[in-house]
């Protein structure tokens, strides 16, 4: 079970005065203090952990964010930045003595520039809203996390979010041009801009994925890309995880980089098919969804090559979408995967470990054995092209025993990923969830080095406390 550091008693004792002070900075209903209205902010996408904050502050301008941070710095108040609260790693879990700084009211699209191919938006704009804003000109914003309907760009920057299409287009860090951030001192910094290369240190790269520990993002300039002429999905079912894994290797080695290459194992296929009726092969042990882009003739060419490759692995089924509707049907089950699993289990943990793709078959086999030992069902739905696994561990949180076993199984799976040459998290972030596993990947010297960089930004450790670093190291 995750532990939080003890709250600062002197902050709790001054709660009313702190809230009054914040109300002077963010007028109207922008400061929430009453218990009932704090409830929605007590957790995020990792809903198993809950802790109401001291107060919630919802600023509407960068100047207000700066004033709030300066106030918190002056009063020793911890700050938990929050976008839509969709973090799967507990990245926005509050503390009793911390304010939640919610950016959701800063939701304006400030500028779209098709000539220079960039858009500047406030941190509370949702991921999908950026693509929606430029879709009429057939442009898009590339990173597409599963939560893209709800998750906000500020949170995407904080966690360096990925998505199904980052095999070709990269993750958030690869699609940013500029940030406006506010430090805990209340300084507003403009990093990057609409140009590609930085002078000085790569602040943009360091802050992206820093999980709200270095600065609070208020504005983001992203690259927007012109959509390809078209896209087509294909689906291939195989006799075993190992065979599907070998096929992934063969595809990547062939010189074709699909825009997406998704893997589902048998439990995942069954859960998604029951939910979405997408026509998935129920007799397959594993299934790949492969998507290519280009003009129709180019799609034909690439799909023919991919079909040849898949045929070498004795597929149970092989289907190339003939129409955009058939492509959408193939994606439908995958996109509804989390909802589908949610229907067959009261609770689940979504892991996010990454492994070298060559270790795919043995890793999946070992995860299966570990799940049997823990007597908990696990299904696997993940981005195969980049080795980013998402084992979903199903359990019932009402059973303390199952909960404990599920937590341990999750930690064991991540330890396995690191042992295979991979890492703890590919796109969800460390947050609260994987904090205590960081020693698996980093030596004490390395954690100290990261801590010193954190201290360079936030010497009092007020920004998103108790995340990322093991408590004993902070």
């Amino acid at each position: 079970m995750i532990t939080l550091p003890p709250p600062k008693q002197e902050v709790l004792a001054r709660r009313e005065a702190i809230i009054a002070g914040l109300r002077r900075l963010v007028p109207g209903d922008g400061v929430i203090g009453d218990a009932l209205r704090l409830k929605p902010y007590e957790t995020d996408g990792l809903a198993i952990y809950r802790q109401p904050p001291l107060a919630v502050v919802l600023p509407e301008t960068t100047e207000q964010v700066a004033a709030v941070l300066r106030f918190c710095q002056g009063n020793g108040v911890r700050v938990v930045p929050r976008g839509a609260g969709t973090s799967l790693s507990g990245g926005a879990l509050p503390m009793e003595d911390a304010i939640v700084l919610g950016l959701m009211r800063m939701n304006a699209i400030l500028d779209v520039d098709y000539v220079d191919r960039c858009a500047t938006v406030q941190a509370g704009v949702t991921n999908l809203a950026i693509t929606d804003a430029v879709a009429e000109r057939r442009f898009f914003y590339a990173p597409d996390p599963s939560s893209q309907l709800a998750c906000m760009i500020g949170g995407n920057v904080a966690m360096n979010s990925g998505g199904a299409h980052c095999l070709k287009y990269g993750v958030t860090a690869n699609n940013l041009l500029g940030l406006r951030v506010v430090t805990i001192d209340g300084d507003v910094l403009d990093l990057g801009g609409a140009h590609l290369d930085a002078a000085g240190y790569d602040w943009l790269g360091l802050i992206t994925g820093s999980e709200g520990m270095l600065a609070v993002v208020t504005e983001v300039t992203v690259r927007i890309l012109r959509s390809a002429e078209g896209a087509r999905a294909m689906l291939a079912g195989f006799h075993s995880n190992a065979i599907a894994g070998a096929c992934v290797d063969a595809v990547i080695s062939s010189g074709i980089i699909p825009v997406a290459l998704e893997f589902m194992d048998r439990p995942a296929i069954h859960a998604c098919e029951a939910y979405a009726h997408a026509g998935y092969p129920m007799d397959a042990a594993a299934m790949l969804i492969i998507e290519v882009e280009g003009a129709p003739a180019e799609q034909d060419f690439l799909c023919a090559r991919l079909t040849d490759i898949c045929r070498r692995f004795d597929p149970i089924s092989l289907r190339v979408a003939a129409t955009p509707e058939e492509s959408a049907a193939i994606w439908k089950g995958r996109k509804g995967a989390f909802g589908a699993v949610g229907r067959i289990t009261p609770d689940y943990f979504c892991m996010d470990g990454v492994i070298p793709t060559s270790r795919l078959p043995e890793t999946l086999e070992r995860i299966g054995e570990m799940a049997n030992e823990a007597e908990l069902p696990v299904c696997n739905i993940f981005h195969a092209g980049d080795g980013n696994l998402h084992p979903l561990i199903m359990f019932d949180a009402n059973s303390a025993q199952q909960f404990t076993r599920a937590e341990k199984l999750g930690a064991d799976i991540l330890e396995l990923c690191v042992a295979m040459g991979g890492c703890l998290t590919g796109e969800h972030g460390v947050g609260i969830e994987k904090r205590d596993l960081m020693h698996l990947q980093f030596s004490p010297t390395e954690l100290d080095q990261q801590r010193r960089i954190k201290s360079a930004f936030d010497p009092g450790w007020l920004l998103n406390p108790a995340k990322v670093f093991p408590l004993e190291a902070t």
Partner: protein
Amino acid sequence: MITAAPADEAGIAAAIADACAACEPLLVQGGGTKSAMLRPVQAVRTLSTRNCSGMTLYSPGELVFSARAGTRMADVETTLSATGQHMIAEPPDFSLLLGTTGEQTLGGIVATNFSGPRRIAAGAVRDHVLGVRAVNGTGETIHSGGRVLKNVTGLDLCKLLAGSHGTLAVLTEITFKVLPAPEDSCSVVLHGLAPHTAVAALAAAVGSPFGVSGAAHLPPAAAARLGATQSLTLARIEEFAASVAYRGEKLCVALNDFGHAEIWPGAVSRAAWASIRDAHVLPTDPDHAIWRVSVRPSRGPEVLAAARNAGADGYLDWAGGLVMLSGPASEPVHAAMTGAVRRAGGIWLVLRAPAPWRASVSVVPPEPAALAALTHRVKAALDPAGILNPGRIFAGV
């Protein structure tokens, strides 16, 4: 000058620990091919990574390789091309331009984060660094990232160290993502356009669905170095052969409003882009200064115009967003250039100039006070004694 070039990471760590204990600054370099840029470093001792070399992992099926920092770029490229793969960001080789001898190393490529024409489509060098091993300014060995394609575990020191010019830590080993090299390529070429029109054409090309992976404009003096008699505007396509043929024709039609476009096939196109990448097309004199400017693409032409007014010349890459300039190393020229870059909202970097002059001007834009303070604190977090390439980017850092 006393040069140490240890053969392994432990030797590099020991050399840095000794220098830290003695508070003795080190000039940190790989092959030393870029020593003519930025500010000159005042140090009696040089620490070179050039002997710490060799590929330690190459897994083409996983699109990754690892190599020690001193591995020569030429060796990396030979190994990758044997399996049909390449460095995604197409890093340039400026050694001819900078008049340096020696071979550039993988560590130098990462420490400077210079990317080639493909930057506009596929990202910078730093975007493909999956993991690093490095020694900080106290001699501690650290790693960040790893060998997998996605990794958000902990702070991203790969990006912090990339482009830090050896001022924060000395890279010892780097893991890169690579991609299959394209089967074929071509360029769609327009002749005789003025810079503003050219950049409009390039914006249309890059904003098309045809996956343009290079977009440059060479004014007459630069174009002359490719044997052309008037300006050249080039958009590159790299794909499977069938797609190159299809997309090249479609792009010619799409750019019809800007004039009659012709197609340069594979070999001709590749040679032109190598010259653009390495700035061999830059009109320059040996005693000229060279500036590398990154701006919003639509503002590239006005920076170029300001440079020409001040007696310099150059060309545009990255659809207008990269301006390579050469001109007399004088304060008025520098002021004209940097003034134009400031107005356009971008950055400059002095790539070549006489050493005393480099020590006296802002080789990159000065940072606002709050950011400068952060630069000092982050530098101190990695190199508390300030011994690694002191003063390389900013005086006193």
